[in-house]
């Protein structure tokens, strides 16, 4: 067990140190609450023995700080100035036990037995929590919000049907993960899953990649090559950013979807293909159709079933869960001992708009873990998450700018009107009027006012 003794008296620290050393525990000491917190920020401890009466930060204050930042760390209060009041107060804040020094050697043994039991319960709790985390995961997709729960149900429903699925959602919302989940739950699960980002491949190359080519079909085609339609061979083909492909390619794909046959570039011999198509887009395809950039017939072919994936800002209740998942992932990858996110930092993450969605959150946690020098990620570790500046183009009206700014400030203060009004340097009545005028509403909940 990793134990820290926090006492301003050296002889007390030494006595504890020698006793625990003889029991094979790893013991550290701190002469003040401040030193203890510094050590805790660097290394995790299982158990702290804290003296109540210390200069500066006293034991009760330290106990409160430890319980707030490291709730799983057990704290035993020790004092020579024991009183029922301070014992009750300590136990109420979360102390595991209370020892009045000097104590009988047996008492310390009993306390240690109690600690071991509590640790056992904690590890059981952690195990169950881990199980619960797995339940809130769906094929590596994490979410417990109603929106994501509905998507998980939809995935299960559509997986069995062989219809084309269109996944619509902003960039970074995890469209490929959902496509993979549909594939994994479909009867084609044992066959290949091939993902192509149509936006990243030039049109001519995309044609060759999808349809394959004959030897000598064009300069550089030095040998025959099978395209993805053939390679997928009964599996699932996932075309990401389908809104990026050219009209000509849309016609070619439409034909493949209708005939289930392809013709390699440079060949006249049609080849039968069998695949399930899942497409994804971050664009508004209907608007593209209206603008004449996307073929309506192709659109209706690919969106037999449409799944709309909400952006992260519309399922804020998933942010904490996702952040914890990414924290665990990057701690494991970087072998750094960063094991928690402070409540203030969590609030920063929950109020940020995440234009890059889950991918941006993942990158933010990775960056914070890599650069962090302590076990705890604080709000300062996410200082790089600045809201994108409002770009005042000549077409932006003052009204739009004001509405945008008020919304951002309200979101930042969790729709606490008093705090938001203070930040905006206007009074609450004026802010309420503006909320009404601009018809602003919180993402889901009541407006708070304190």
């Amino acid at each position, binding site marked *: 067990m990793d134990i820290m003794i926090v006492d301003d008296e050296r002889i*007390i620290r030494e*006595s504890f140190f020698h006793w625990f*050393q003889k029991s094979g525990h790893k013991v550290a000491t701190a002469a003040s609450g401040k030193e203890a917190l510094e050590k805790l920020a660097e290394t995790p401890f299982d158990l702290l023995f804290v003296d109540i009466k210390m200069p500066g930060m006293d034991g009760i204050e330290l106990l409160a700080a430890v319980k707030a930042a490291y709730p799983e760390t057990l704290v035993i209060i020790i004092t020579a100035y024991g009183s029922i009041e301070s014992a009750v107060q300590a136990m109420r804040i979360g102390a595991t036990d209370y020892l009045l020094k*000097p*104590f*009988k050697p*047996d*008492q310390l*043994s009993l306390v240690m037995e109690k600690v071991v039991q509590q640790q056992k319960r904690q590890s059981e709790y952690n195990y169950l929590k881990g199980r619960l985390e797995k339940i809130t995961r769906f094929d590596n997709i994490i979410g417990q919000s109603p929106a994501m729960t509905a998507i998980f149900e939809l995935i299960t429903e559509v997986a069995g049907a062989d219809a084309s699925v269109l996944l619509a959602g902003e960039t970074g919302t995890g469209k490929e993960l959902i496509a993979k989940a549909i594939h994994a739950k479909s009867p084609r699960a044992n066959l290949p899953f091939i993902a192509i980002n149509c936006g990243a491949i030039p049109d001519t190359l995309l044609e060759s990649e999808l349809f394959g080519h004959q030897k000598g079909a064009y300069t550089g085609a030095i040998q025959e090559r099978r395209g993805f339609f053939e390679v997928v061979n009964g599996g699932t083909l996932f075309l990401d950013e389908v809104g990026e492909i050219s009209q000509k390619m849309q016609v070619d794909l439409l034909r493949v979807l209708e005939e289930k046959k392809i013709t390699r570039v440079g060949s006249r011999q049609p080849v039968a293909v069998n695949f399930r198509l899942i497409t994804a887009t971050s664009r508004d395809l209907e608007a593209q159709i209206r603008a004449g950039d996307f073929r309506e017939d192709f659109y209706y072919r690919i969106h037999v079933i449409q799944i709309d994936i909400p952006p992260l800002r519309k399922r804020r209740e998933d942010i904490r869960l996702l952040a914890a998942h990414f924290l665990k992932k990057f701690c494991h990858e970087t072998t750094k001992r960063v094991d928690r996110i402070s409540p203030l930092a969590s609030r920063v993450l929950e109020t940020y708009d995440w234009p890059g969605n889950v991918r941006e959150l993942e990158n933010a946690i990775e960056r914070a873990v890599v650069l962090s020098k302590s076990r705890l990620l604080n709000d300062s570790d996410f200082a790089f998450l600045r809201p994108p500046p409002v770009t005042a183009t000549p077409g932006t009206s003052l009204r739009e700018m004001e509405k945008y700014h008020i919304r951002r400030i309200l979101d930042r203060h969790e729709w606490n009107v008093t705090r938001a009004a203070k930040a905006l340097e206007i009074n609450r009545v004026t802010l309420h009027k503006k909320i009404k005028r601009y018809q602003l509403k919180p993402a889901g909940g009541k407006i708070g006012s304190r």
Partner: protein
Amino acid sequence: MSGSTNPDRAKSAVAVIPYAGASTIAAKVIAAHVSGYLNLTVETRPPEKIPPDALDKRRRQYNAATLIQTIESMHRKDCFKVIALFDVDLFTPIFTHVFGEARQNGRVALVSLFRLESHMNGSSPPTDRVLERAAKIALHELGHLLDLLHCDDDRCLMYFSGSVDTLDQTGFNFCRYCRTALRRKLRQEGIIDTPT
């Protein structure tokens, strides 16, 4: 525990020193047990005076940490390990009392007879029970001097006993893990030569 003893070290392997009024018989019993259990050469030395600065007048007890420090400085080179036997009550700053005290891998172990000479209910136990308790504590503390930790096995001498009742229930032997660790340590220190 068996194994041949290094003749150069054997002469001063362990010294048992009674302090003030501590029973010389108890010292001899401890010496016999250490010698028997660990196959070490043990000598019983004449009684010495208790270092006066170890007395805490407020608590009317002797500070074990101060005693260890003083005795260590007095017997720096004349033996490998020292077992100091007292008939006064010993304490450490966190504990009301201790039956014995030793630092992990240290040189001096303390044993106090003060609280071994009565039962939990206040009655007096027979002398052989007191001597048995003293020998158990001496072997336990010597174990710490030889780098043994507290053992989870309540039949082992290295099991932590906070009361005389627990001490009486503790076995009079080292468990096989502690025995192996002891042998390894004594070999490392050159106290015994041959593996058994």
